[in-house]
């Protein structure tokens, strides 16, 4: 690429920006952890607050947005001027694809063949239309394909745990084998390195997530598609890119090509990231990431990206009538830069087809009704497995807000929060669910409510959190040791964290296998005190299926799923 031509410094600037934002994203990912005590790292929600897709969808679906998300208005405002600059310079997921695509082997000729625009790139707009249609009525499923959600969720539940395991196993192997010569042992060097990695980069305990395989497989697939087309995700799939394309389809910074200088060599296509046709086929602003590769690559220096001062330059494909109108405006409005704000030229119409867009939107609307008329829809029934983190809104409001980003899953200190498979229906795929066999809800902890960028889990103070019931524990007396086997246990009672324990016990004479009567303490639950934190379940001696389980019954957030007669219900 950059053959020492005049604009290569812009390419380097763009690369620096991409690197910085990608590293910032990864840094904030690692910071999404417990910083003693009960504080996440600063600014961990930043990318979701800049997310141009999350804001309109949350607003459409829930008619309310978390204040921080208004930052994304800046993203949208910049897009009006610079088009999809965000995709090319900021988006960390885009930068990852960019990096992988640049590793693509093969001759430049193949790149020339695949670098140009393909009509299927319109698919992402229809994806967006489906999401918008569903969100219009309250089903916010954009998180499936929101680029930040997709990236963060994949890192949190799949990539990071696997990397963490690999590093820990490597150092664990060194620790166990401890090879060396005489008194010189490898652990003298490896253990301090491992300690450093553990403190700054690794998890303190190996995390495990349900559904990690599917999420990891999709992530690997999304990355591998770069070998088929550079930045396949950004060109064909990304609904956030589609939204930015629509907002920035008529930007002020534009590509202008000098037809006289251009010899139609099409080299500019070789490194085009978005399939935006910088060549003679006609530039597509809604597909351009402003990566400046074409300007840098052009051997004839025919391509310039810049603020089009004269609306007539670069208007190669303007309709004939527009030329006259623009001239008129030029006379009427004076300075050319001002004119460009009033009536920028339209280099290439983004023609998505009204019918197709409407059909996609209708598909989204239709899917909402299908989602909500399933068994779990609108409070007709409740899944006992669907225990949401404390502070989660009532199910319908929750689904209208959650973008499935995985922040809560990453930050949970006990590894209790997992992405759903179908516990919340297809509509709720990858939303958070608590699995008490793996972790429990720490009584003094409010981290998930602090990192949630959308307010699907609302911000909580500790005292308020401790009053929220996320579910209710119940005993399986066919397994519980003092009931089924006349053995002492009550680990659950020991662990119960409420100030007045929600687990109490009864001393009974139980029949032991020997035929003797032995005194054991059989546990019971006070449903008024139990908050469903699940530590009883996590610490139960039965690991496969604990003898004390938590179901969603009695959860504060869904009054209709309550159990007890309360004055307030």
């Amino acid at each position, binding site marked *: 690429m950059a053959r020492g031509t005049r604009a290569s410094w812009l390419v380097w600037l763009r690369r620096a920006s991409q690197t910085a934002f990608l590293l910032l994203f990864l840094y904030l990912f690692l910071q999404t952890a*417990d910083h*003693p*005590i*009960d504080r996440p790292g600063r600014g961990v929600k930043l990318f979701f607050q800049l997310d141009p897709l999350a804001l309109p969808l949350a607003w459409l679906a829930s008619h309310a947005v978390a204040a921080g998300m208004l930052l994304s208005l800046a993203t949208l405002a910049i897009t009006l001027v610079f088009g999809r600059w965000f995709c090319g310079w900021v988006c960390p997921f885009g930068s990852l694809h960019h990096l992988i695509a640049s590793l693509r082997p093969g001759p430049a000729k193949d790149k020339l063949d695949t670098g140009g625009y393909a009509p299927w790139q319109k698919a992402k707009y229809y994806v967006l239309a489906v999401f918008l249609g569903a969100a219009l009525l309250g089903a916010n499923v954009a998180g499936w394909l929101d680029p930040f959600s997709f990236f963060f969720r994949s890192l949190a539940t799949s990539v990071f745990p696997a990397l963490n395991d690999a590093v820990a196993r490597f150092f*664990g192997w060194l*620790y*166990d084998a401890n090879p060396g010569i005489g008194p010189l042992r490898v652990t003298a060097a490896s253990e301090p390195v491992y300690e450093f990695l553990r403190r700054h980069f690794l998890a*303190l*305990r190996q995390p495990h997530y349900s559904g990690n395989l599917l999420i990891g497989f999709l992530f690997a697939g999304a990355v591998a598609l770069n070998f088929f087309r550079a930045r396949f995700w950004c060109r064909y799939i990304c609904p956030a890119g589609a939204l930015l394309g629509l907002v920035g389809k008529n930007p002020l910074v534009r590509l202008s090509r000098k037809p006289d200088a251009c010899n139609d060599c099409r080299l500019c296509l070789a490194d085009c990231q978005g399939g935006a046709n910088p060549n003679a086929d006609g530039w597509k602003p809604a597909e351009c990431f402003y990566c400046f590769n074409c300007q840098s690559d052009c051997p004839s220096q025919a391509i310039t990206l810049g603020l089009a001062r004269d609306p007539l330059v670069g208007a190669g494909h303007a309709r004939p009538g527009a030329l006259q109108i623009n001239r008129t405006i030029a006379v009427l409005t004076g300075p050319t830069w001002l004119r460009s704000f009033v009536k920028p030229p339209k280099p290439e119409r983004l023609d998505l087809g009204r019918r197709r867009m409407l059909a996609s939107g209708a598909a989204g609307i239709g899917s909402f009704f299908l989602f909500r008329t399933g068994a779990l829809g609108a409070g007709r029934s409740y899944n006992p497995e669907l225990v949401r983190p404390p502070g989660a809104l009532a199910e319908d409001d929750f689904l209208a807000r959650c973008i499935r980003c995985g922040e809560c899953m990453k930050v949970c*200190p*006990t590894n209790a929060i997992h992405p759903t498979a179908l516990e919340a229906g297809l509509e709720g795929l990858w939303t958070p669910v608590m699995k008490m066999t793996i972790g429990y809800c*720490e*009584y*003094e*902890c409010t981290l998930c409510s602090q990192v949630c960028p959308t307010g699907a889990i609302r911000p909580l103070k500790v005292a308020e959190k401790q009053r929220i019931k996320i579910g209710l524990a119940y005993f399986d007396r066919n397994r519980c*040791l003092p009931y089924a086997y006349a*053995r*002492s*246990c*009550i*680990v659950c*009672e*020991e*662990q*119960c*964290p*409420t*100030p*007045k*324990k929600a687990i109490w*016990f009864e001393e009974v004479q139980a029949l032991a296998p020997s035929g003797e009567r032995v005194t054991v*303490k059989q546990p019971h639950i006070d449903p008024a005190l139990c908050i469903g934190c699940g530590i009883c379940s996590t*610490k*139960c*001696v039965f*690991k496969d299926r604990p003898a004390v389980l938590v179901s969603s019954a009695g959860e504060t957030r869904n009054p209709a799923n309550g159990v007890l007669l309360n004055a307030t219900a």
Partner: protein
Amino acid sequence: MNETLKDPPEGGAGAFACQPVFSRPLNRRRFLASAALAPGALAAAVPPSLAIAHYKAPPSAPEGIAEEARRLTRAAVGALGGMGRFVSKGNVVWVKPNIAFDRRPEQAACTNPDVVAAIVEMCFQAGAAKVLVSDNPIHVPERTFPRSGIQQAAEKAGARCPFMDERRFRAMSLTGAKVLTKWKLYSELVEADCLINVPIAKQHSLAKAVLGMKNLMGAAGGDRGRFHQDIANTVTDLAAFLKPRLVVLDAVRILAANGPTGGNLSDVKRKDLVVAGVDQVAVDSVGATILGYRPADIGYLVEGQSRGLGTTDFQSLSPVRLEV
């Protein structure tokens, strides 16, 4: 709440059950004087094996309680002959407080941080090369260590507070064990030159009381919940194998109900006591008395005595009683 904390020595639900223990109050000066005057100077040459320090005028401000905890600890260990009796120059010392829960010091679920800090300081004064303060907690260590205040206090005193590393638990054969013949224990804790057990006194529904011997469960890995099926033997197995050189029981505050997690300040009682001793059964027996139990009611104390780990009849050791 202050009313509850200043629980008077006599009467009430949190009755000062060990009142007889303090029938012969003694401060350091009187102790030394009596020791010097004792006709059998030989008796003074045998260092005492149990000391109970009580604070005369318990303060209510947090800084005051911190100072109280430090002074009580120094006095109790001092009465045994000072830390030099247990820690030699160049020793690696493992201090094992109870840091099991994500609870603040005033909730009395974890050992008082100032008791721990005072011990760390005394260890260094006795010439310890390295002092490690750690526990295998029930909640996650990155929360329990700082929340209990133990990490800050111990690190300030010069100790290191590493989180236990899963790989360093090693299956060990516990000699003489009845139940835990082989279990995973923390290798560095076992290999330390000197183990100092620093429990806090708490109520426990199954074991009745969490004291020093039960605090040693924090040296074990694996699924410790199973210990509950035979708590007397499992706890005694651990205590017999680990044999802490010194036990310092924190009863500045105790958790009298809803233990061992606690959380309710009205379950916390002020006792303003620190008990130090070399006989782990005897120290725990004093602790049991403080909590309002007879040592004979607590399975692991009975079992410990029958295995010769110590005596539940702590009075027979002529404990040194100090009013600080």
